[in-house]
C-alpha cells in the first residue's frame, strides 16, 4: 500500500522558497504585461479560484483524511456571505467582508463536520452531501440572501483594495492572485506545523492518534473549519473576480466533484498538487474544444463537447487512480528528477 506522501521531498536545484519567489515574481511582474484578456478571464481567474478551493479540500481530505463532497456548498456560502456583508454592513472594507465570509463558511463547515466524529470514509462522504443540498436549497429558497433578486442571482460589487480600483481583467487577476498567494502560503505553514502533523496522524491511524493524546475530535473539526474557510474565500474569488454574476445553481454537486477531482488528479496531501489539478481541469476543456472543433468541425457543438469532456475526464481520473495515485505532482517530481539526473551526468 502506498503511503500518501507529503511535500517533504527536497527540491534538488533551488531551495523551495526560491522557486516560489520566482514564480510569484513572474505572476506579478510579467504575466500582467503579456497576458491577453482571454488568458485572464478564461484561464487564470478560474485556475486561481479552483486551485485555492483545491488547497482547502486537500487540507481536509488529503491531509486529515476526511472525505467531503460538500466543497461547492462552502464556496457558495463564502460567495453569498461576502455579498451580503458587503451589501448590508456599512463601512466594512471589501477585504473585511471576504475574511468574515470565510469565517461564515468555516462555521458552516464545523456544523457539517460534526458527523465526522462518528462516521468515516464513504459514510462521511455521503453525509457531507447534506451540506451540498442544504446550502443550495437555502440560498434558492430565501431570496433575502440574494437581495430579493430573481432566481437568486447576485452581482459582484466593484473590487477595490485601499482605494485602488481592480475592476479590469488584470486588476481582478491581481486581486485573486494576492489572496490566493497569501492563503496558500499560510496553508503551507499549517501543513508542516504540529497541527498539520496531527491531521496526517488522524488520517493514517486514528486509534494510535487518540492513544498518544492527539485531541482527535477537536482536530477533525479544526480541519473542517480551516478547509471551509479557504474554500469559502475561493468561492468569493469565483463569484467576485471570475464570473462577476453567480447563482446558487452554479455551486452544485458537479462543482464539488470537480474540486475533488482536482485534488485526486493533482495529488492528495500536496498543496502544489491542488494547482496542478486545477490547471488541468481548467485548460483541459478548452484544449478539447479546440481539438474537437479542428478535427470534427461543426459536428463538435457544445453538447458533444460536454459529453466528450465527461468521458475523457472520467477516463483520466481512473487512469490516475490506477497508474499515478499520488497525482500530477508525483509525476512532475519524477520527471524533474530524471531531467536533473540526465543534466548532471552529461
Amino acid at each position, binding site marked *: *500500500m*502506498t*503511503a*500518501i*506522501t*507529503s511535500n*517533504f521531498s527536497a527540491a534538488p536545484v533551488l531551495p523551495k522558497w526560491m522557486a516560489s519567489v520566482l514564480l510569484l515574481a513572474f505572476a506579478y511582474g510579467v504575466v500582467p504585461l503579456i497576458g491577453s484578456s482571454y488568458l485572464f478571464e478564461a484561464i487564470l481567474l478560474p485556475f486561481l479560484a479552483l486551485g485555492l478551493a483545491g488547497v482547502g479540500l486537500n487540507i481536509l*481530505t488529503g491531509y486529515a*483524511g476526511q*472525505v467531503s463532497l460538500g466543497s461547492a456548498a462552502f464556496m457558495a456560502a463564502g460567495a453569498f456571505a461576502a455579498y451580503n456583508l458587503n451589501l448590508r454592513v456599512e463601512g466594512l472594507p471589501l477585504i473585511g467582508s471576504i475574511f468574515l465570509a470565510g469565517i461564515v463558511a468555516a462555521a458552516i463547515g464545523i456544523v457539517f463536520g460534526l458527523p465526522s*466524529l*462518528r462516521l*468515516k*470514509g*464513504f459514510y*462521511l*462522504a455521503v453525509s457531507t452531501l447534506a451540506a451540498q443540498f442544504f446550502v443550495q436549497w437555502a440560498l434558492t429558497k430565501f431570496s433575502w440572501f440574494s437581495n430579493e433578486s430573481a432566481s437568486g442571482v447576485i452581482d459582484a460589487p466593484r473590487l477595490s483594495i485601499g482605494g485602488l480600483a481592480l475592476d479590469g481583467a488584470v486588476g481582478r487577476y491581481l486581486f485573486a492572485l494576492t489572496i490566493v498567494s497569501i492563503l496558500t502560503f*499560510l496553508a503551507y*505553514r*499549517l501543513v508542516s*506545523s*504540529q*497541527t498539520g*502533523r*496531527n491531521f*496526517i*496522524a488522524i*488520517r*493514517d*491511524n*486514528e*486509534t*494510535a*492518534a*487518540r*492513544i*498518544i*493524546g*492527539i*485531541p*482527535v*475530535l477537536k482536530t477533525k473539526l*479544526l480541519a473542517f473549519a*480551516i478547509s471551509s474557510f479557504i474554500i469559502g474565500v475561493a468561492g468569493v474569488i469565483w463569484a467576485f473576480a471570475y464570473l462577476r454574476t453567480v447563482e446558487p445553481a452554479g455551486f452544485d454537486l458537479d462543482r464539488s466533484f470537480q474540486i475533488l477531482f482536482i485534488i*485526486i488528479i493533482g495529488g*492528495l*496531501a500536496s498543496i502544489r498538487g491542488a494547482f496542478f489539478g486545477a490547471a488541468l481541469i481548467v485548460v483541459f476543456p478548452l484544449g478539447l474544444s479546440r481539438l474537437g472543433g479542428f478535427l470534427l468541425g461543426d459536428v463538435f457543438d457544445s453538447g458533444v463537447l460536454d459529453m466528450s469532456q465527461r468521458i475523457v475526464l472520467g477516463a483520466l481520473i481512473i487512469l490516475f*487512480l*490506477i497508474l499515478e*495515485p*499520488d497525482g500530477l505532482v508525483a509525476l512532475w517530481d519524477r520527471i524533474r528528477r530524471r531531467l536533473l539526473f540526465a543534466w548532471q551526468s552529461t
Partner: protein
Amino acid sequence: MPLASYALGMMDASVYAPEVFARGLPSTLQPSAVGVVPAGSIATAAAPLLSLQGIGLSFGGVVALADIDLSVNPGEIRAIIGPNGAGKSSLINVISGVYRADRGHVLLDGIRYGQVPTQRLAHLGVARTFQNLALFKGLSVLDNVASGLAYKVRSNFAGQVLGIGRSRGEQRDSLSRADQILEFLDLTTVRDRLAGTLPYGLQKRVELARALVAEPRLLLLDEPMAGMTAGEKSEMAGFVRAARDRFATTVVLIEHDVGVVMGLSDRIAVLDYGRKIADATPDEVRNDQRVIDAYLGVASDNEDGAGI
C-alpha cells in the same frame, strides 16, 4: 489501488476492534471512584504502579478475560505470555482504555477506573505500542516520533502558522527530543524517511520510539518483537531493557518468544483461555507444570504475530 481504498477510509479501519471504533468510544469517562493515594514515600515505593482487579471481558460468547488480577511494580519488566488467543492483547487494550472491561477495574497510580480514559492516557504517563503496526505512514520517522509529544502541545494552529507565541519553542523542543530518542534507539539514519517505507523491524522500533519520547512511567508493549529475526529480537530486547534503565519506565511486555521473555523480565504472568494460570519469576514459571502443559510444551504457533 492505494488511493481509492484510502479515499474510502478502508485502509486501516482500525488496528484492531473495528467494531468498537465504528461505534466510537466515550472519550471522557471519569474515574469511577478516586482511590486512596498512598501517603509517605515508603508506601509509594511498595505500592504497585498498576493493578488490575477481577477483570472480566467477553465478546459475544467468547470469554477473552476471566477474573484477572495483576499487579505491576514500579520499575519492573512484567511479561505476559500465553498461547495465541489467550487474551493478552485484550488485557493491554483494557489497561489502555481501548476496551471497557465488563467486570473489575484498573488501578493506575492509586486511581481506580472502570474504563481508563484513552484520550488522557498520555497525560497519565502511559504509552503503548500495537501488535499490528500503527505508525503514521505518511509522516517521516522524525515526525512520527515527535507526534508522541503532541499531547503536550499548548500552542494553537494560528500561533503555529504565524510562528508566534509558544509554538516555536514547542516545535524546537519536540523535534530535539525526538532526535534524542532516535539516537538512543539507533534510528538516526532513517530520520527523514517516510515511516511507511521502512522495513518491518525498523517500523516496530520507530513505534517504540514514538511511545518512549513521552518518557512514560508505564510502557505497554504488545509483541514488539513479533515477526523479527533472532538478531533483531535480541537487539530489541536490549532496547527495552535500556529504556527501562534510562527512563525508569515500568514495562508490561507481551512476547511469544519464551527465551527472550525469560531473560528480560522480572516477573511473568501466564494466560490461557482468558485465565491467569501462573504468575511468578521466570525460573518458577519455567518449571510450573500447568504452564508447561498449556504453553511451553507446545511449539509456539504465533511466530508472525498472527491474530489480534
